[in-house]
């Protein structure tokens, strides 16, 4: 049975430093949740507390409704995969995987033959059967990581905690292992909590993302929710690059760039109190939502055009602000943009986070008068 984790008001201080500040969150049984956040935001600290390797100063961690410090790790059924593998160096791969079964008390310990069969099955699962007799020092990083995973799975955990399991691997192996983990998660009755500081990994793999910053939870939601409805500029900027455009709201919710007066966007909710005329706003716009149109009277000047894989990256200067636009490479020729050429700039989609009022965000689209060629 997969585990349901509920974290209530957990705080953890190291001396005067608050590593976790009243963190509360629920991880429904069977979900794969990504714990995402910048370095030092408290991800490892939270994971260790859930694992019972560290203890909160205040608050509790409940696994299936039970306080998890009350039980021996053996009964808790929590698997932990360490960031740096932490394999037992003097044991073979098979020995590492068998460890959790071998240390069980006599009554609960499977027979030697059963352990052997289980280890073989687990190694097949992580596709490392042929390395069973090797020592950890004789494996590659990705292989070690999979051994660590097999070792954690040997005790049939209801909850699997992974601390940046793919952090030390190259992008390709990381993607493969990530997909593989996702499939594994679906095949087993298990709840997984995956720590990562790679937003792409979190967006791709997780059912739900918990975004942390400075020991607090910034936002919890599905990848789509976090990406399309970020609760704060921090969330928005953490989940991908974004341009900031300083502007002023004019009549009809039209946003004009501060300085040039160019109309670049329009509020989709012009009746909103915070979209009232005269209001200064900071528009957050993803590079692919920034549209450019070559025009001799345009206010933006192209600074550089670079090809980056499937996209072209165009840097423009608009009223002293440097902005980045991304456009599919095949569309680049039809844009007729070179270094130094002038262009009109339009926001296809953007948002702002008013500081006054109840927070939340305002959504913006291209001005209604604008029709893309």
């Amino acid at each position, binding site marked *: 049975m997969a585990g349901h984790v509920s974290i209530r008001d957990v705080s953890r201080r190291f001396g005067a430093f608050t590593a976790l500040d009243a963190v509360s969150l629920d991880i429904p049984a069977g979900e794969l949740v990504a714990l995402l956040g910048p370095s030092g935001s408290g991800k490892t600290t939270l994971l260790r507390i859930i*694992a019972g*390797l560290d203890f909160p100063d205040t608050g509790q961690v409940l696994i299936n409704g039970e306080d998890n410090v009350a039980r*021996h*790790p*053996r009964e808790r059924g*929590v*698997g*932990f995969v*360490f960031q*740096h593998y*932490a*394999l*037992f*160096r*003097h*044991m*073979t791969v098979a020995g590492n995987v068998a*460890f*959790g079964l071998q*240390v*069980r008390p006599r009554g609960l310990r499977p027979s030697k033959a059963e352990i052997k069969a289980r280890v073989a099955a687990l190694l097949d699962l*992580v*596709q*490392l059967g042929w390395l069973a007799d090797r*020592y950890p*020092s*004789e494996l*590659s990083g*990705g*292989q070690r990581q*999979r051994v660590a995973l097999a*070792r*954690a799975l*040997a*005790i049939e955990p209801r909850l699997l905690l992974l601390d940046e399991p793919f952090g030390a691997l190259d992008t390709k192996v990381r993607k*493969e*292992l990530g*997909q*593989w983990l996702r499939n594994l998660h679906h095949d087993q009755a298990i709840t997984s909590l995956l720590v990562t500081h790679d937003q792409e990994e979190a967006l791709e793999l997780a059912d739900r993302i918990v975004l942390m910053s400075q020991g607090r939870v910034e936002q919890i939601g599905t990848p789509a929710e976090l990406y399309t409805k970020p609760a704060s500029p921090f969330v928005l900027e953490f989940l991908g690059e974004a341009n900031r455009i300083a502007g002023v709201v004019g009549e009809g919710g039209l946003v004009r760039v501060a300085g040039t007066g160019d109309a670049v966007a329009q509020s989709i909710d012009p009746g909103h109190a915070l979209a009232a005329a005269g209001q200064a706003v900071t528009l957050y716009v993803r590079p692919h939502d920034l549209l450019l149109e070559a025009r001799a009277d345009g206010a933006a000047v192209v600074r550089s055009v670079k090809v980056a894989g499937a996209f072209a990256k165009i840097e423009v200067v608009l009223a002293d602000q440097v902005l980045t636009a991304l456009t599919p490479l095949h569309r680049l020729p039809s844009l007729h943009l070179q270094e130094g050429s002038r262009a009109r700039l339009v926001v296809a989609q953007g948002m702002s986070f008013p500081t006054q009022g109840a927070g939340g965000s305002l959504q913006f689209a291209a001005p209604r008068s604008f029709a893309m060629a």
Partner: protein
Amino acid sequence: MSLADSRPAPASSLWGRLRGQRSILPGLGLSLGITLFVLSLIVFLPTAAMVGDAATLGVGGLVHLLATPRVLGAFKVSLGCAALAALTSAIFGLLIAWVLVRTRFPGRRLADAMVDLPFALPTSVAGIALSTLYAPNGWLGSLVAPYGIRISFTVIGVYIALTFVGLPFVVRSVQPVLQDMEAEQEEAAHMLGAGRLQIFSRVIFPAILPSLTAGFAMAFARGLGEYGSVIFISSNRPGVSEIVPLLIVNQLEQFDFAGAAAIGTLMLILSLALLCGIMLLQRLVRSGRHG
């Protein structure tokens, strides 16, 4: 999607092996030459001279000399006490290293420094201190004297003196390994359900075993050669508590140079054999771990 890894590359070419492993360290040839020169000057030459001296006795004379009860007794005392003392050092040295690394108590640094005392102390001073301490009227000796146990001036005293000089070898070889051990391995074992005892016996102990055997070997070798502290605490009775190094000195005092050399040669062979045995054991323990 496939994660199947490619098999490891075939072993390096024959040519590569014939030429020997290339090394990135500069001046390997020169430093190797100097090492061999110094080694032969201070180890090989004296040893050869001693073996040559012993050879003057002839095979019959050698066997006759070495089979005397006094010589056999001395070897028994030396080997037995050194082995027992090294074993004791291994056990308590491990304990001391553990406490020094894993616990924090006031005076820990002082205790840490005191471990080196047997290294620094002139052995004769240690011998006098120990024999006074363990004499029937000494602080410790008087505690066991009522039960008819004598420590100073018996083989027990020899054993204690050898333990004293052997202890720092074990502590100093185990301590750094314990210090460098990742806490994560223990945490991993804990998460997998291992108890404290299991974590120690299955995770920590195997990791420090190589350094422990190295410490044991050094303590043992030191015990075989120890002279200064032993002659003070032992009654030095031939065949009972006389150690081999003392026997050699006694032979020399009687101007029996060939006899002394013969005993010395036997000692050398025995020590070498023992150390080789320990090294082999250690290699067995380590095998696989470093590929």
